[in-house]
């Protein structure tokens, strides 16, 4: 019986792996085909690998210029979201704050209201603050966009932490900030991991806000490079696929490397 469920479980896992991995393999495979074979040659391993597609795409899309911007935006936004949301999440659960439920609902309400209608208001606001076409304007908007979900996660998590640890720390003479820094944050590694991944992905794949807030191309993020290949009258699918691979692979690598920390983080969480 055990064996049968084992086989069953493993076959489901394998099917899911194929379903999830296939599109990515396809992107990479298409990115190595030529403009003509990308539609006709449906094999996964192209007969002729055109690795020069990648250099062409890199140059044509000016990815070099945008790469740095995206890394910069991603690091700062992730850091900002993490800091502000964990503080708020901690405050809203572990500290006495009159009206904290209302504050919480208001803070996460941003998550509910769809943004499509808000772009004019946002632009006018940034223009008045002198933040149009600045890195700061873009970063602050992105941080604001990532906050509600992260606050929500941290709050749910901190609610589950047992009070004993906190009391022990208080006896040791920790003040509130130290309590947050030394006890709460190390415990919440699994949540930190999710918040980091979520926000990193969000910033990395973002272009709508960038197109609204930024004017100069020298400030634009990576997705602007991809834009060149995906307009309405564009035929270079192989280059588009190479572009998608170029923008996606770094994040896969980072994600894979982060695994270790997620695991150890999760384990640390399990010790509570």
């Amino acid at each position: 019986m055990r064996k049968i469920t084992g086989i069953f479980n493993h076959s489901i896992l394998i099917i899911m792996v194929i379903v999830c991995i296939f599109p990515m393999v396809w992107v990479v495979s298409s990115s190595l085909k030529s403009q003509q074979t990308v539609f006709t040659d449906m094999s996964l391993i192209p007969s002729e690998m055109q690795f020069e597609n990648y250099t062409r795409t890199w140059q044509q899309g000016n990815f070099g210029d945008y790469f740095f911007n995206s890394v910069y935006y991603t690091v700062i936004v992730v850091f900002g979201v993490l800091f502000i949301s964990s503080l708020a999440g901690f405050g809203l659960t572990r500290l006495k704050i009159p009206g904290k439920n209302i504050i919480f609902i208001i803070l996460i309400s941003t998550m509910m209201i769809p943004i499509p209608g808000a772009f004019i208001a946002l632009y006018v606001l940034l223009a008045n603050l002198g933040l149009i076409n600045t890195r700061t304007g873009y970063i602050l908007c992105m941080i604001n966009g990532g906050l509600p979900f992260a606050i929500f996660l941290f709050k749910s998590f901190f609610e589950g932490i047992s009070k004993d640890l906190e009391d022990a720390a208080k006896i040791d003479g920790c003040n509130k900030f130290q309590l947050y820094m030394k006890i709460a944050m190390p415990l919440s590694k699994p949540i930190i991991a999710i918040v980091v991944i979520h926000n990193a992905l969000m910033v990395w794949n973002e272009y709508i806000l960038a197109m609204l807030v930024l004017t100069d191309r020298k400030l634009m993020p990576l997705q602007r490079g991809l834009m060149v290949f995906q307009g309405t009258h564009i035929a270079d699918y192989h280059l588009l696929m190479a572009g998608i691979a170029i923008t996606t692979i770094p994040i896969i690598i980072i994600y894979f490397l982060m695994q270790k920390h997620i695991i150890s983080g999760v384990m640390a969480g399990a010790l509570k």
Partner: protein
Amino acid sequence: MKNLVIAIILAILVSGCAREEVDYVSVWHWMTDRADAFDELAIQYRDKTGVEVRFELYAPSPSYSERIRAAAQTDNLPDIFGVLGEKRDLASFINAGHVANLSGYMEKPDSTGLSWRDTLFPAALEINKFREVNVYEVKEGIYGAPIDIMNIPMLYNKRLFERAGLDPERPPLTWDEFIEYGQKLKQAGINVFSSGFGETWLIESLAYNYAFNIMGEEKVLDTFRGDVPYSDIGWVHTFTIFEDMKKHNLITEDSVTMINRLAEQQFATERVAFSFNGSWCVNVYRGMNPDLEYSTMLPPKYSDEHNMVIWGGAGSSFLVNARAARKDEAVEFLRWLTADEQQAFLSEETRNLPSNKDSLDLIEEEILIDFSQRMQHITHPNVWPVTEEHDIREAMNRGIQQILIGERTPEELANRLERLKN
């Protein structure tokens, strides 16, 4: 840790405060396919005149539309920009004082005695023109410079015609003939027609072509005015075209929801004999399949009462910001951009039809000549004195999709539109 955070926050706040002075002509556009060509022209222009022009691309089109609307609210529009959408949207931008009237510049003759207007394809100018009396209450004038022209005819694959035993030089002229050709193609195992009907403007364009063919321009416009009901037999016939397509299996099932890019891919890879697409497709098809042998045709006539027309006119246009500090420089640049040499360059690079008459005469590529000859059959909603409301057009387009999947009959759609109109 804490200090690091504060330092980073301070750093980003400070980095936002430096603002540079602008000393160039700024252009915003959405044309991904032309971005490189524009950049190159900007360099040429700087070398020639010393004036710096900077093109900035914002895509996809909804993002571009949002951007110019938002910028309009704070008077942050660049010196040169374009408006995507309908004439109504252009009119709103003009009425809000964002668009310069170019009539004066257009008519002033230069040293050779020719005016700017004389050099441009007349039908392209019409798209951005407002007559003395117009429903949009815009002051008479020409408000934009067309940088290319286009039309949306039907296309057919010559090689697939041959394979089905059809004459590749003689596309079907009437609807009955189209059905007959379709049967032959099907017998040869070839898909007949596909188009990007998931993007409803292609449906709308084809439907209005047939409405003009069946009822004539005046009656169609009278429907918009509310003087002719949609339940009129002419509209029912118009919608019957699509029912016929479904009934005779002439349209691929995918077409109903297909985005145009995918439809272009199907036609380019010779998986379908007919398509309905605009002249911008030349570059796309060439990229996907340089060996594709195809030609343009008018949609086969359903009725002999009136001529068949297709949509066409200016492809993309640039407008000058009425409040721009460098208004004259901007106009000067647009004039240069639409001059024969630059138009020839753009046409060469992106295979769009040039808006400059002289460059149009100089095109050599056979298929582009073919397209340019279709310009004599064009019409466009932007030149009609009235247009239909957006909601009713949307209901028509969606309704036609419903006809194509067998959820509605032409009569039902006609009646529904009539109800909506009231």
